[in-house]
């Protein structure tokens, strides 16, 4: 009955990077109408969904600590997450258990769970590779705990984790439903360590969505539809070490608070010089339109775009800086009030790359001391290895990793 339909979707999914990504480039500029036209993300595939998938408007990033103490229990945990993700991303009617227990589904999405473009993306942190599961010898060299950078204000309670679950969907209730479902089915296997909820604004009025400093964020991103760029900067292959991670990628999550009250007291000119772009159009300060490419080489002393500006430090557009490019997939967050009545809001910065130190951290090193650093405080996050995709209905997350001896 459903198998033919699933098979169809699966088939689409395998070769889908191009299709999904093709929508992505335009979607990045014109959400949500183009995103709505993108094909439904496929759970099965060489790569996990939620990486090249055009960013759905709602997300949560949840770090868990694994409670299982044996390899077999860790495998049970990953199988359970796989089964829940497979159901939740496909949607359907949760089975009823009659009088044998409370309803297995929270009912938050009604009796029939819509797929709602949900993606469930699973990563593992360096801390998973310790003596508990006999994985210490298999820790990929590029997977480390996230270091504290010079301008960081990391809160240990919001940093690191054995597992990262990224949930993204078109609507908030779908994200919440998925989180409750996964947590309920894994109570004894893992516990939430921290979470960061995010949303993406619609284009205001057009182009790349704005962050909570009022600036368009992500204009010069890599192009998910350009397979060569993804292969060069994002995906691990079977030729990388370790081979079991082929099809995966490294994810950096950074919870970056923006001191928005302070920021709002800064003159527009100074704000724009810190970013290197116009606040209204998103155009680089040496251009007219958002999509204009900044001509750093023609401005060696930073007359138009200051040498210390964010866009110039982050991506100098030189041959040397090219290998450090990353695929960004950030969300805004808005999370209550601090002790002095200021708003706790900012950015859940998320990026994907082949090597976090050579890419994300390299960019961080260039950004160190940028003027913008006075207005943002990285408070949490972590480095994670996003596992290879779940190939088909018989596969599960981490099957390659957990079969190692």
């Amino acid at each position, binding site marked *: 009955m459903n198998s033919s339909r699933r098979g169809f979707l699966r088939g689409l999914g395998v070769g889908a990077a191009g299709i999904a990504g093709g929508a992505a480039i335009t979607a990045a500029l014109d959400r949500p109408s183009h995103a709505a036209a993108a094909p439904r993300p496929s759970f099965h595939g060489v790569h996990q969904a939620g990486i090249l998938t055009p960013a759905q408007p709602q997300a949560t990033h949840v770090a868990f600590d694994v*409670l299982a103490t044996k390899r077999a229990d860790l495998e049970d945990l990953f199988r359970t997450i796989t089964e829940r993700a497979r159901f939740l991303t496909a949607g359907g009617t949760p*089975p009823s258990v*009659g009088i*044998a227990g409370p309803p*297995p589904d929270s009912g938050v999405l009604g009796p*029939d769970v819509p797929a709602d473009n949900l993606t469930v993306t699973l990563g593992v942190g360096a801390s998973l590779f310790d003596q508990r599961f006999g994985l210490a010898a298999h820790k990929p060299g590029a997977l480390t705990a996230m270091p504290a950078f010079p301008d960081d204000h990391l809160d240990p309670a919001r940093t690191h984790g054995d597992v990262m679950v990224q949930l993204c969907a078109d609507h908030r209730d779908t994200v919440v439903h998925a989180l409750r479902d996964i947590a309920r089915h894994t109570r*004894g296997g893992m516990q939430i360590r921290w979470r960061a909820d995010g949303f993406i604004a619609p284009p205001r009025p057009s182009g790349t969505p704005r962050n909570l400093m009022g600036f368009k964020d992500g204009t010069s991103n890599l192009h998910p539809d350009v397979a060569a760029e993804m292969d060069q900067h994002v995906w691990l292959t079977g030729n990388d070490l370790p081979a079991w991670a082929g099809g995966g990628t490294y994810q950096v999550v950074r919870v970056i608070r923006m001191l928005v009250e302070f920021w709002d007291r800064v003159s527009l000119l100074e704000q724009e010089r810190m970013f290197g772009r116009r606040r209204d159009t998103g155009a680089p300060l040496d251009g007219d339109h958002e999509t204009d490419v900044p001509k750093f080489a023609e401005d060696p002393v930073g007359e138009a775009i200051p040498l210390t500006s964010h866009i110039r430090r982050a991506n100098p557009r030189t041959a040397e800086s090219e290998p450090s490019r990353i695929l960004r997939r950030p969300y805004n967050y808005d999370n209550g009030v601090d002790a002095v009545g200021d708003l706790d809001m900012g950015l859940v910065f998320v990026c994907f790359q082949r090597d976090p130190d050579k890419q994300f951290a390299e960019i961080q090193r260039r950004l160190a001391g940028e003027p913008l650093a006075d207005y943002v405080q990285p408070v949490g996050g972590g480095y994670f290895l996003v596992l290879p995709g779940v190939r088909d209905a018989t596969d599960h997350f981490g099957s390659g990793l957990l079969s190692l001896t």
Partner: protein
Amino acid sequence: MTKPQAAPLLVAALTLTGLTGLTACTGADTTGAAVEVSRGSCGVGWKAPHGGQQTVSVHNVGPVTMEVELVDPGTHGVYAEIESLAPGTTRPVSLVLVRGSYAFTCLPEDSDAETGPAVTVKDGPAVGASPVAPVSEVDLGPAVATYRKQVGAGLATLAGDVTALRTALASGDRARSQAAWLVAQTGYSRLGAAYDTFGDAADAIDGLPAPGTGDFTGLRRIERGLWHGEPLPALGKVAGRLATDVAGLRKDFDRERTDPNDLPLRAHEILENTLQVELTGDADQGAGAGLAIMSANLDGTTMVLEAIAPEIQQRYSRWGAVTGELGALKSLVDAQHRNGRWTPVAALSRTGHERLDGALGQLLEDLAPIAAIGEVRRTQ
């Protein structure tokens, strides 16, 4: 050993959705069986029944409200139920049906149960919903008797513990009083009082500060004073009132009846309360004894489970897992009792806290079905 798994029925269902695709997606298979019920005609009209995820609409065409159950006509085990189906209303029953026989049983108000024609499902998956033999009030009678006997004995012990606490307070020895308080507090917590078990008496014996006023009396009030330097004679007065309240509870408990439904509910409710107020540290008035109380609450849960085991054990496939998890959690908690001192919840390491949270969370998930399975149902 706790396992990161769902309750068995969920796992079974997952296997279905995941591997065979039988229940997932659009609900295309759940179309339209419909039956009518009325007095003298129960569940007529279910044509060509199929297995898999099914929804059957049940329409009460009669003049009286009735309870309707989907049953196995051979054993009268219940798959699903509709409580209070009013005249003229239609309610769905959704279930994963496996091969086998099914029938509806109607239980109209004030008249006998009646089971309608059996239908046979000849297709369908190997795993799906399983019937549960209904539990009657009579069935739970011995469990209630066992439970009441244990609680009665526990209350007698508590009365003695409170007397010892008063003696300690009168002696002027704070350390001795603190030790006597812990004995009394855990003695009470071991009775598994949660929610309405002991009614107003529970607030007087074990209540937390009232919202707004902060007023309270009883064990927690004494704890507050003992760990905040309050003069012992003043606490002696609170303990005097506590003794009166405990005596009142003993008298009331002897007189009052225990609703059999309470026992299956207590299976998870005692520990729901533990998770909410002890493991969070919210109830702590200074002693840092949350884990001692948690350990006592686990004993209280064990007492309830042992009482209902004869009826529930064979009805619940994860009974063995539950008792295993309960024992493992008890060991985990008691490992925080070293050299006569309990680790305060606030002093737990992050990992230590997460282990307790996760083990308790998993146990609660697995205890929860007991309340549904053990709910008292009409059987005739």
